[in-house]
């Protein structure tokens, strides 16, 4: 009936009875989803299996380090999904940004120039995606699928199909350096997530994104500049994905056209998991962080238990389905 697909599981049950629902605290609200329970269950399970290892400082740091770049890409994906779109090019954008930084460093440019150029590449890709979606009215799926294809091609061109390496320490420190024995990407991921959370929560543009994602026509009629807001959302996503790509290159000390390509599916999965966490069913940062945590804990925990990586992949899919099903069951029983 409406043009915007409504992702809110709560809409159908708008009965007068809902009136009685008291306002719930943030904690209660967070617990409404099975997703949080799934994360808690996973942590408890792995802790029970390997109490000597799983929750040690070293391992928790490992998990944080392993998910930090995925978390950054997932932040980018969250912003776009708040607006009700999605961006298939985030992982490719991050690869290209990392490749551009790598190519410039290899060509002898300074770290500052390389990083700024790579950020600019991310920003520019986001801008183009935004223009395609918001002003040329392409569907986000088609636009970002097409741009992803071109971006991967561009990354092959930039790297000439090889793996670029031998970057100066000033650059690799961004990804491998430590502060208080915690790797830099962890701090940067936390910082980016916090800034994105604040933007989504406390700024007019953030609230406009939510309004557009909820019902684009109402938003438009309420005087929200829908096109500009969507353009901005894609631009921010491109920028953030670009930063993620720089950190990935710095973390691995190399850049190639395809590195980090699994971040696309994982970022979408993390945001979807996060959408089940809150009542409105909209994409949200807290939820995304939980989604990223589930993916990270799964992979680390199963590695620690020595589970075959093919089995791991099967189990990961099942856990995602289970978490989403669990929360939709809760929604239905309400």
């Amino acid at each position, binding site marked *: *009936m*409406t*043009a915007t697909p*409504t*992702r*809110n599981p*709560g*809409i159908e049950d*708008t*009965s*007068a009875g*809902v*009136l009685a*629902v008291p*306002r719930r605290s943030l904690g209660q609200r967070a617990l409404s989803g099975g997703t949080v329970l799934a994360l808690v269950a996973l942590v408890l399970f792995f802790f029970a299996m390997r109490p000597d290892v799983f929750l040690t400082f070293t391992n928790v740091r490992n998990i944080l380090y392993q998910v930090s770049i995925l978390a950054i890409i997932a932040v980018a994906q969250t912003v776009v999904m708040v607006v009700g779109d999605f961006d298939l090019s985030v992982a490719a954008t991050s690869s290209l940004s990392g490749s551009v930084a790598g190519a410039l460093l290899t060509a002898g440019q300074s770290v500052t120039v390389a990083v700024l150029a790579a950020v600019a590449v991310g920003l520019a890709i986001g801008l183009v995606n935004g223009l395609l979606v918001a002003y040329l009215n392409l569907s986000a799926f088609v636009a970002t699928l097409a741009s992803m294809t071109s971006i991967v091609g561009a990354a092959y061109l930039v790297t000439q199909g090889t793996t670029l390496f031998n970057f100066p320490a000033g650059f690799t420190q961004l990804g491998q350096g430590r502060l208080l024995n915690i790797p830099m990407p962890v701090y940067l991921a936390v910082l980016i997530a916090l800034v994105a959370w604040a933007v989504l929560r*406390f*700024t*007019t*543009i*953030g*609230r*406009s994104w*939510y*309004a557009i*994602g*909820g*019902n684009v*026509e*109402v*938003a*438009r*009629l*309420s*005087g*929200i*500049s*829908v*096109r500009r807001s969507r353009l901005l959302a894609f631009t921010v996503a491109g920028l953030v994905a670009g930063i993620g790509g720089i950190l990935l290159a710095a973390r691995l000390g190399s850049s190639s056209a395809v590195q980090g390509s699994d971040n696309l599916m994982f970022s979408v999965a993390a945001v979807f998991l996060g959408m089940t966490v809150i*009542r*409105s*069913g*909209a994409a949200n940062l807290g939820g995304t962080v939980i989604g990223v945590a589930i993916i990270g804990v799964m992979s680390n925990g199963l590695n620690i238990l020595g589970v075959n990586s093919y089995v791991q992949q099967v189990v990961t899919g099942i856990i995602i389905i289970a978490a989403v099903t669990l929360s939709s069951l809760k929604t239905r029983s309400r």
Partner: protein
Amino acid sequence: MTLMTEPAEPASTTTAAAAPAAAAAGPFALEARDVSKHFDGVHALRGAQLAVRPGEIHALLGENGAGKSTLIKVVTGVYAPDGGTLVRDGEEVQFTGVRAANRAGVVALYQELSIIPSISVAENVLLGEQMPSRGGIVSWRSMRQRARVHLERLNQRIPLGMLAGELSPVQQTMVSVARALATDAKVLILDEPTASLTDTEIRELFVVLRSLRDEGVAIVYVSHRLEEVFELCDRLTIMRNGSHITTRDVSASTIDEVISTMVGRDPGSLYPDRGTATEQVTISVSDLQGRRVKDVSFSARAGEVLGIGGLAGSGRSELLRILAGAQKQTSGTITVAGTTVSMRAAVPQMLEAGVALVPEERRSQGVVLGATIRDNIALANIPTVSSAGVVSGARISTIVERGMRDLQIKAHSPRQPVGELSGGNQQKVVLAKMLARRPKVLLMDEPTRGIDVGTKAEIYRLIRQLAAGGTTVIAVSSELPELIGMSDRVLIMHEGRVSGEVDAADADEEVLLSYCYGKADVR
């Protein structure tokens, strides 16, 4: 949904020079003078007028297609009029878009487009430009304060942090009214605001609307529910065929008079004369069983219109669905034109046997809204328009042209998407696609649901024409006057069984109603 295409943004108000004759600026909050608008050469509005005073609730009435929604879209800046003028508080204005109209205090609320379900109540009240912020940072505290003020003006105590999607329908309406007030609306246009509300909720809404009226807000109230109009409104304007017919005080009108003015003729002539059925039985059913259907037996003849009534849940729709092969039959026999149909016959086999169904939920079961008239008609006739698996465009054109001509479907061309047509014309498309199969028995479930009075008469006439051509029409209706008016004979169902059978010519609503409740059994 097609209705909300907004012209390009950004929008801004262009206030033309104030009308020179200030004296002509009456005491109206909003005036549309002699407005015309046409689409592709078809006049949607011709000499439309609307003049609303501050502090009144003004009903805008007319059949579907009379031009009410087009007029609303003109006064709210969705469409630019081709001719005529808009006057707001004595000043001639031109709205370049919805936002321009909103800034000038003219706000329309549409039922399905009233709120954003996934965000909080407070934000819904203060969406967009109204959101309190400094340097791009939102002040949640002052947002809550201001939202509370606006809701309290409506006497509503809705938790501000709740998701709007979790509110009851009336609360959602209240939130959208509050948003209109937050934009300082002076002219509030409500389009069918009570469609999804319960009686109690309607009372609640009326209290609020009256108090807004008393504060000086001009309210335009669009509704098909005339009882509500007579209870709530002060004046009314009736439109027909895109033109203004009359504006007068509600106290000086009666419902009957309003209806006949809307329809433009005496509503008594709604139903055509009955015909005479032949002796030839086209369909006979004995001891039919299925979900919600128990031991039903009857037969119908060529040229007969058989009405089937009963309360909701009596099994009347299920009976039709079984006959059409859309629902499983568990026992009993169906004989069409002398041949007994297999128990397992599904829709294609029943169509082959000559039984076609026009379903109740037109928009979800009858037509593909996004597809063209041509494609919709072709869809149900693929076997007839194709040979050896290849579809013939020429044959499609033939049946589409014939259908559109015979049924007088009002559309620009066969390539117009069905979603753009009025409810009545959509129903005709469904009919056209089924009639192209030349059914011996046509089943119709609620043939006139959601169709305006004028087109209803046309549908009844079509049904009668079909019968005259030898088709048997079996029609389910929940409206007793319709059942009696259109049928030759009426069966009433109660809890899956036939509880009564009456000759329509001497049927009486009271008797039918008692059968509906299973109170008498003539059998």
